[in-house]
C-alpha cells in the first residue's frame, strides 16, 4: 500500500505544460463564451466612449491588456500576503499605479494619442474588468494562470471594442484607421451616418454583436 502512494506522488510531479488544455481555457473562454463585455457586461463605459475611431481604440486596448497582465501578476504574487480586510484598496493601488505609468509613458512618447484619449486612460482604473479579474481570479490562483487569465480577458475586451470601433469609424466617418475607405473606392459622396459617432451608435453596434454572439453560442441569461 505504501509503495503505491509513493508512486502516485511521483507520477503527479511533472509540471503542467505551459499551455495545457486547462490553461488554454483561460484564454479561449473570455474571447467568446465568457466575454467580459458581451456576456458579463462589464467595461461598457469605455466601449461606448473611445470607440469612435480605430486608432485611439487600439491604444486603449493595448493599455488595458498591459494593465491587466501586470496587475494580475502582481496581485497573484502577493496573494498570500494581502490582508483580506484591505484587499480592495490594495488592488486599486496596484491598478492605479500601473495606469498612471501607462499615462506617463503615453505622454512622453505618444503625445498626440495622449491628448486624444485624455481622460479615458485614467478611467482604465475604474474599468470593472480589471478589478473584477483581480478579485475573482488573481487572488486565488498562481501567477502564470493569472497572467493567462489577464491575456484572455484583455483580448476578449479588445476584440469587442475594436469591432465596435471598426463599424463606428467606417459608417460614422467613412474611414478605417484614418484612411478614407469610401473615397479610395471611388464613392466620394457615400453618406456617413452621424448617429455612429455618438455613444448611441455604440449601443446599437454592441447590441448587434451581443445578438449575433448569443445566437451562435446559445447563451441565455437566467
Amino acid at each position: 500500500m505504501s509503495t503505491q502512494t509513493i508512486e502516485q506522488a511521483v507520477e503527479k510531479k511533472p509540471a503542467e505544460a505551459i499551455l495545457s488544455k486547462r490553461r488554454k481555457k483561460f484564454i479561449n473562454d473570455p474571447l467568446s463564451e465568457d466575454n467580459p463585455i458581451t456576456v458579463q457586461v462589464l467595461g461598457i463605459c469605455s466601449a461606448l466612449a473611445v470607440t469612435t475611431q480605430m486608432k485611439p481604440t487600439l491604444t486603449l486596448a493595448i493599455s488595458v491588456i498591459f494593465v491587466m497582465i501586470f496587475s494580475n501578476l502582481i496581485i497573484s504574487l502577493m496573494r498570500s500576503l494581502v490582508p483580506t480586510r484591505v484587499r480592495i484598496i490594495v488592488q486599486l493601488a496596484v491598478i492605479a499605479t500601473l495606469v498612471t505609468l501607462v499615462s506617463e509613458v503615453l505622454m512622453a512618447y505618444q503625445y498626440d494619442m495622449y491628448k486624444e484619449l485624455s481622460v479615458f486612460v485614467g478611467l482604465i482604473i475604474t474599468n470593472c474588468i480589471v478589478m473584477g479579474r483581480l478579485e475573482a481570479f488573481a487572488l486565488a490562483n498562481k501567477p502564470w494562470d493569472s497572467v493567462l487569465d489577464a491575456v484572455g480577458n484583455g483580448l476578449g475586451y479588445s476584440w469587442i471594442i475594436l469591432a465596435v470601433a471598426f463599424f463606428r469609424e467606417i459608417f460614422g466617418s467613412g474611414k478605417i484607421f484614418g484612411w478614407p475607405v469610401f473615397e479610395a473606392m471611388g464613392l466620394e459622396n457615400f453618406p456617413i451616418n452621424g448617429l455612429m459617432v455618438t455613444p448611441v451608435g455604440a449601443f446599437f453596434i454592441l447590441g448587434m454583436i451581443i445578438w449575433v454572439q448569443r445566437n451562435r453560442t446559445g447563451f441565455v441569461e437566467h
Partner: protein
Amino acid sequence: MQQSNTYVIVFSAILTIVLGGLLSLANQGLKPMQQKSVELDTKKKILSAVTDLKGKKGNEILELYGQTIESIVVNLDGDPVEKDEKGSDIEAEKVNIAKNFKKAPEDRMYPVFKYHKAGDKDAVEAYIFPVYGKGLWGPIWGFIALETDLNTIKGTSFDHKSETPGLGSRITSTEVRNRYNGKKVFDDSGNLVSISMLKGENNSPNVLDDHHIDGLSGATLTAYGVNDMLDSYFKYYQGYINKLKNATEKVALLY
C-alpha cells in the same frame, strides 16, 4: 497574524511607499521626454499655420522653428511685455493661452510669433497669433497667421478638445482651414470686420466675400464658436496690429 491591525498598517505603508516611489521614479525619468513632446506639439501648431509640415519629423520641426520664428509677448495695448508679475522672464511659447483666457482681457498676456525667412529676423513674412475660445462641447483653440499687410489671412491651424468627430472636429482638417486663406480681417476703411463661417455648407459663391467663408454642415454651433473666437482675438490684438501699422507707415514716410 495576517488579520492583525499592525500587519494591515505595516502592509499598507510598505505598499504605498513602494508604489509611490515607483511613480515618482517614472515621473522623473520621463519628464524630459514629456516636456519635449509638449514643446514639439506647440511649435508644430504654430508652424502649421504658415507652412505644410507633412512628412517632417520632430527634430526637423524644432530646427525649422528655431530658424524661422521669433516670438514676443504683448499686452492689450500692444506694448511688449518682458517680465511677469514675479519679475521673471516670459517665454512666448510657455504662455498658457487657456489659463490667460480665464483672466480679464486687459490682464492677459498675448504672445505674437513672427515668421521670418530662415536666419533673417527682419524679413518677416507673417505674424502668427494664438486664439482660444469655446466650441460646442469644449474649448477650441488655434493659431492665425496674417500676411505682412496685417489684414490678409495667410493660414490657420485649429484644434479642439471634444468637438463631435466628423462634424465639428472638421475645423482641424486642411480643407476647412484653407477656406480662410486670403480672406480679410479689416474692411477697406480699416474697420475690424473679422471673418465669419456661414451656416450650412455649399453656400452660393455670391455670399462668400472677403469676410465670409463656407460653413460646416451639421456643425453650425462649432462654426459660430470659431467666429466668436476669431472676432474677440482680433479685437485683443488690434492694439498691437495698429502699432505695427503705424510703425510701418512712419518708415514709409521717411523714404
